[in-house]
C-alpha cells in the first residue's frame, strides 16, 4: 500500500516536472523565434533601404542635366521642328482599305 502510494507520488512529481520543462522549452522557443523575426525584420529594412538607394541612383543618373551633358559630349544636338518626321498614326492601317477603294473608285464591302 505504501509502495503504491510512493509510486503514485513519483508519477505526479514526474508529470509536474515534465509540465514545467515543457513550459520552459516553449518560452525559450518563443524568445528564439522573437530574435529570428526581429533579424528578418532588420534584413527586410536593410534591403528596402538598399532598394531606395539604388532607385535614387537611377534617378540621379537619369537627371536631365546629366543626360544633356552626355548627349552634347557625344555630339548630339537638339532637333529643329522642320526636320521633325512624325510616324504614321496607329489608325492609318485601318483607314487604308477605304483610301484604296476611293482611289480605284470601288465600293468597300464591310466585313460581316
Amino acid at each position: 500500500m505504501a509502495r503504491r502510494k510512493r509510486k503514485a507520488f513519483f508519477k505526479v512529481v514526474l508529470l509536474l516536472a515534465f509540465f514545467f520543462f515543457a513550459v520552459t522549452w516553449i518560452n525559450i522557443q518563443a524568445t528564439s523565434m522573437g530574435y529570428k523575426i526581429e533579424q528578418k525584420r532588420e534584413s527586410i529594412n536593410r534591403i528596402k533601404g538598399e532598394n531606395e538607394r539604388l532607385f535614387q541612383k537611377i534617378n540621379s543618373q537619369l537627371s536631365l542635366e546629366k543626360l544633356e551633358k552626355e548627349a552634347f559630349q557625344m555630339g548630339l544636338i537638339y532637333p529643329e521642328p522642320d526636320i521633325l518626321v512624325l510616324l504614321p498614326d496607329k489608325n492609318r492601317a485601318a483607314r487604308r482599305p477605304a483610301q484604296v477603294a476611293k482611289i480605284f473608285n470601288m465600293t468597300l464591302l464591310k466585313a460581316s
Partner: protein
Amino acid sequence: MKTHYFQSRLLILKFAILSGIFIVLARLFYLQVSSHKKLTSTAGKEVERTILENSPRGLIFDINSNILSTSVKAWDCYILKKYFKSAKKLPEVSRVLNIPQNVLADKYKNFYAYVPIKRNADAAFFEKVKKLKIRGLQCDEKYRRHYPNNEMIRNILGVVNSKNEGISGIELIFNQLLRGGKRKRGILRDAHGRIIYAQSSREKSKPLNIFLTLDKNIQYFCDSILKKFVKKMKADMGMVLVQNPQNGFIYAASSYPMDINQIPVFQWIYEPGSTFKTITLSAALETKTVTPQDKFYCENGRWQFTPKIAIHDHEPEKTLTVSEIIEKSSNIGCAKIGIKLGMEKLYRQIKLFGFGAETGIGFYGESGGILKPMKKYRRIDLAVMSYGHAIAVTPIQMINAYSAIANGGNLYEPKIIYKITDSEKKSVYEARKILIRKLLQKETAEKVKDILVKVVEKGTGIKAQIEGYSIAGKTGTSKKIDEKGNYLTNINVTSFVGFFPAENPRYTILVILDHPRKYYYASETAAPAFREIAKKIIVLKGITKSRKS
C-alpha cells in the same frame, strides 16, 4: 540485513532529491506567484519600451510620374560620453569614419555629454559606425527630403525643416497629407539590448503622394532657355509660364535667378504694357464697339491728350484699322479704342478676365495685382489703361487671360495639382477643369486670335515666328513699377505672351524679362525666347505643322 541497509540508503537518496525539487519548486512559487507583481513591474521597466517611428513623407511627382521630391533614410551619428567613457577609442573612430583626429578630439573636449559627429549621414557611413561596435557611439535613424532634380522648381516644391515638416511651397500647403502619422511600436529587449519582440502597430494615417501638373521636360527647357536669355539680354530677372489653355494646367513655372522663398510667377506684379491691348481689343469686339476693319487716326505718332499729357507711339502712323493697331502696337490707336469703349465697359471686361483678384492657385503670398476702384480712374487713366498702364498684373493672371482667348473665351481656374494618391496608387483626388466664367463669344475669341496671328506674321511679334506653325501672340514693353505702383526711372519690363498652334491651341507661353539692358523692346528680347521654348515643345510633343502657316 543488507536489503534493509540498501533500502534505507535509497530512501535517504529519494528524500534528498525530493528536497532539492521541493526547494526549487518553492523558489519558483515565490518568484512566479508571491513576487509576481513586483518582479513584472521591475522587469518591465528594464526590458519593455515603446518607440516612436516616423514614416517617410509622401512623394511629389510631375504629371508624367517623374519623381520631383522623395524621402531618403539618413542618420545623425553622435557619441554619448556617459557610455563612451574614455577618449582612447577616438583615434580608431576618426580613422574608420574618415574624420580628422584633431577635429574629433576638439569636439569631444568641448561638448559635455552629447558629441555630434555627423548629421544626415548616408548608409555607408552608418554601416561603418555599426561595424565599429563601440558602446556610446550611436546613430539615430530619420528621413530627410531629397530632390533628384536639384534646383528645378525648388521654390514651388518648397522646403522642409529639421523635423521634416514643410515650411514653404507644396511641402507646406500639403504638409498634413504628405506627413502621414507617427508609428508606435512596443518592444522587448534582452540584457544586451537586442530586440526580442516588437509589435507592429498600425499608423493612424499613411502619407499621400502628390502629382503636380508640371511637366519635368518642359520645365527643364524653360529653365535653361530662360537662364540663357536673362544672361544674354543682361536682365535682372526672367520668368516663364507654360499653360494648357484647354484646362488651365500649368506645365512649367520658371524664374531665374531663382529665390527658394519666392514664386514670382504668382507674386510679382508688373505693368503689362502692350500685351494688355488684347484685353481692350477683346472688350471692344465683344461689346461690338468696334470691328477689326474700323479705322482710327493715329496722330502721326504723337497725340496731345491734354495740355500737359501727350501719348506717343514708337513708330509714327497715320490711319490704321483696329487689326493694324494691334499688329503695329499703336498706343494712340488703342487709347482711342479704349475711349470709344468707355471706362465702365473696359473695367468690367478687365474684372471678367480675372485682373485685380487672386487666381486661387493656392500658394501663399499670391498677389491680386493693382486695380483701383473704377471711380478713382480719370479719363487719362482710361486712355493709358487701354494700352496696359495704370494697372499692375501678375504673370499667372496674364497667361490665364490669354489662355481664355486661345480656348474660345472660357476662363478656367489655373491648376498646379494634378492628382493625389495613397500608398497603393489609388486616386484620392483628381483635378478637373473648372470654368470660372464664359468671357467672350467664340466668334469674338476667333477674331482676336486672327489678329494675334497677324502680330506674329507681320507685326511686332515677327521674332516669335516658327516656320510651318501658326502662332498667335503679343509683345509688351512697359516701365517697371515698385510694390507701391511707382515708376522706376529707366527700367523697363519686356514680355511676350502667345499660344500655338493657333487653329487648336495646346500651349500658352508667357515670357517676361525684367530690365533687359541689351535691347529695349520685347520684340528683340522676350519674343525670341518664346520662339525657342515653343520649338522645344513642338519637338518634344510631336506637334504637326499647321495647315495654313
